């Protein structure tokens, strides 16, 4: 894959059994991708208003990856979510108010102000928050998978990383260890063409998905802008892992549509490349597909967008109303006085619902169950 042949990106490398996704699932996929887009747009405007201390990062253009991948997980599976993957937090039940509050360093952010931007993980939702060093969380995901394997539990750990991170030695350690131990772990690689300003051709001589085989695990390449393709590939990988078949590397081809961070004007990105990928926007293209292939009415799709916008707006108000943390909190929490298990995440895919308990066709706009700022305060 070179810089300019984005159009050559293949479709789903793993064929999707159409029965896997219900109409309601498809609406949810669109809803979560839209929620990520709208929440990040809102966060960016808060940043521009000076309400976000530090720096700002988003995953614009990559919404299909975190949403499609997280959608394949069961409640008891575990995740390490990375910096372009806000959609995975939403799928697991984190609400946008807590995301926005975290960005603003507020007391009700997921970390209570201890850490910023996407460096959070909601313990109650089965997530371990990423650290900045890349791709460290791949090794932690291995460890969670190791515990699951040792106890014979049919559970899976999943983590994300960018293609740039595959150059780091820890990536090699992670792949090698997962391969040796046949761990129930799924690695979702987001090839968004750049690591900060460094393009693919300066990141590696052999594409990471080709390297997978060398570690004794399958590598699958999918169109990362096609949410169903991502879901299909990750679902297959999760099922394999759950059945004792070991790890999979899923490389999702995509494009980072914003700068590395809000401070980055992307002067190094050829405009044609952006235009090419703009035409493949994961949300626009999925909305179009729902209309053309899956019989959605235009009003349904529009309603999802409008409802998400209204909901994120309410969330932003809640986040803005959240206080800054007490300064003294900075000195607390260095050491634990007991271990507590992670909680289970939301698993909105109908595949996890009991038979007869499938979600209704209409998309459910109220937030998935879980602590919102309001509920926390109550």
């Amino acid at each position: 894959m070179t810089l300019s042949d984005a159009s050559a990106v293949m479709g789903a490398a793993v064929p999707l059994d159409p029965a896997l996704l219900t109409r309601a699932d498809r609406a949810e996929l669109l809803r979560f991708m839209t929620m990520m887009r709208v929440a990040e747009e809102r966060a960016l405007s808060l940043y521009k208003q000076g309400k976000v201390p530090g720096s700002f990062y988003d995953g614009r253009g990559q919404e299909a990856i975190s949403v499609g991948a997280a959608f394949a997980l069961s409640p008891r599976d575990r995740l390490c979510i990375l910096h372009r993957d806000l959609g995975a937090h939403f799928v697991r039940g984190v609400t946008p108010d807590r995301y926005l509050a975290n960005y603003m360093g507020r007391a009700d952010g997921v970390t209570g102000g201890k850490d910023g931007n996407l460096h959070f993980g909601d313990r109650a939702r089965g997530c371990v928050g990423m650290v900045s060093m890349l791709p460290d969380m791949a090794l932690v995901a291995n460890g969670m998978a190791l515990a699951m394997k040792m106890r014979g539990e049919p559970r899976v750990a999943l983590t994300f990383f960018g293609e740039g991170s595959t150059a780091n030695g820890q990536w090699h350690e992670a792949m090698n260890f997962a391969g040796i131990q046949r761990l129930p772990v799924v690695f979702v690689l987001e090839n968004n063409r750049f690591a900060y300003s460094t393009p693919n051709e300066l990141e590696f001589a052999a594409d990471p998905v080709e390297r997978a085989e060398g570690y004794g695990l399958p590598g699958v390449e999918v169109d990362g802008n096609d949410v169903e393709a991502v879901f299909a590939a990750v679902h297959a990988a999760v099922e394999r892992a759950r059945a004792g078949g070991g790890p999979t590397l899923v490389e999702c081809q995509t494009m980072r549509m914003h700068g590395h961070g809000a401070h980055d004007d992307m002067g190094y990105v050829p405009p044609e490349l952006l235009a090419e990928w703009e035409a493949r926007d994961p949300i626009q293209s999925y909305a179009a597909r729902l209309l053309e292939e899956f019989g959605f009415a235009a009003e349904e799709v529009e309603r999802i967008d409008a409802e998400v916008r209204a909901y994120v707006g309410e969330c932003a108000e809640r986040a803005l109303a959240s206080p800054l943390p007490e300064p003294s909190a900075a000195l607390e929490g260095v050491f634990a006085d007991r271990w507590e298990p992670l909680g289970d995440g939301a698993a909105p895919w109908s595949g996890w619902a009991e038979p007869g308990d499938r979600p209704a066709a209409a998309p459910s706009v109220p937030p998935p169950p879980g602590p919102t700022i309001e509920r926390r305060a109550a």
Partner: protein
Amino acid sequence: MAELTYLEAISDGLRTEMRRDESVFCLGEDIGAFGGAFKVTAGFAEEFGPERVLDTPLAENAIVGAATGAAIEGMRPVCEMQFADFIACGFDQLVNVAAKLHYRQGQSVPLVVRLPSGGGFSGGPFHSQNPEAWFLQAPGLKVVAPATAADAKGLLASAIRDPNPVCFLEHKGLYRHVRDEVPEGEYTVPLGKARVAREGGELTVIAYGSAVPLALAAAEALEEDIEVLDLRSLCPLDTEAILASARKTGKVLIAHEATRACGVGAEVAALIGAEAFEDLDGPIRRLTAADVPIPFSPPLEQEVLPQLDDMKEACRELLAY
């Protein structure tokens, strides 16, 4: 009570905890069939099976990272670094991931990293280090360094049961040279409590690890009224015991085998200087390794590491003050 070497006591402590709690497991290089570079886990694979005595590839970040993830999921991993020096290769997972998870998101990470440390046997620059000060600059890590066999067992058990990442510095020079009475069965020594290894009234030697037997030998040889305080735990640090002994004797020598600059000695000296200044009858002195890599050839290594004569000399100087 049984008389065990320091090494046997570590094995005993680990075995006892593995029998007591199924979630305790070991991982590291060559620890299974081979029993580890120093044989701490000899016979473990037979008793507990290869899964709980997990041989890993040569990849220290993978070891510490796997331990971190497994600990989050409720296991109690005990990592073995083949030599303490190699933690440098797993440092990122330890200080950036494991150490900060509780502070950042309330996630407890109950893991132990066993670190065969120290020199004195021509291990050279990469098999002789005492890296404890590295960890003390990483809030979120606990650090212990036993000097006796009983403490090696009891502190290891406490480290395994602690809900935080604990660096367990086991001094290779003590492995087979230290031997004392060790309680049988389950036995714990609390983290953060120093031990008066020898009572005295004229001078306190504050030490840990290999410096403790050295201080005791010097005190015996000099036949002086020297107190030896064994810190046992460097984080949490028993500040009360340190200040109490400093106030009692008024003279303090801090001794460790690790290099000097910004080491434990500096921290302890600053504490005493700030809190017990009025009670001091002399300068706070340090006896440490010189600030150089640990050289290989015996005369060079002996020049760098604190020797018994150095300890005696340092005590004499302070006593005469």
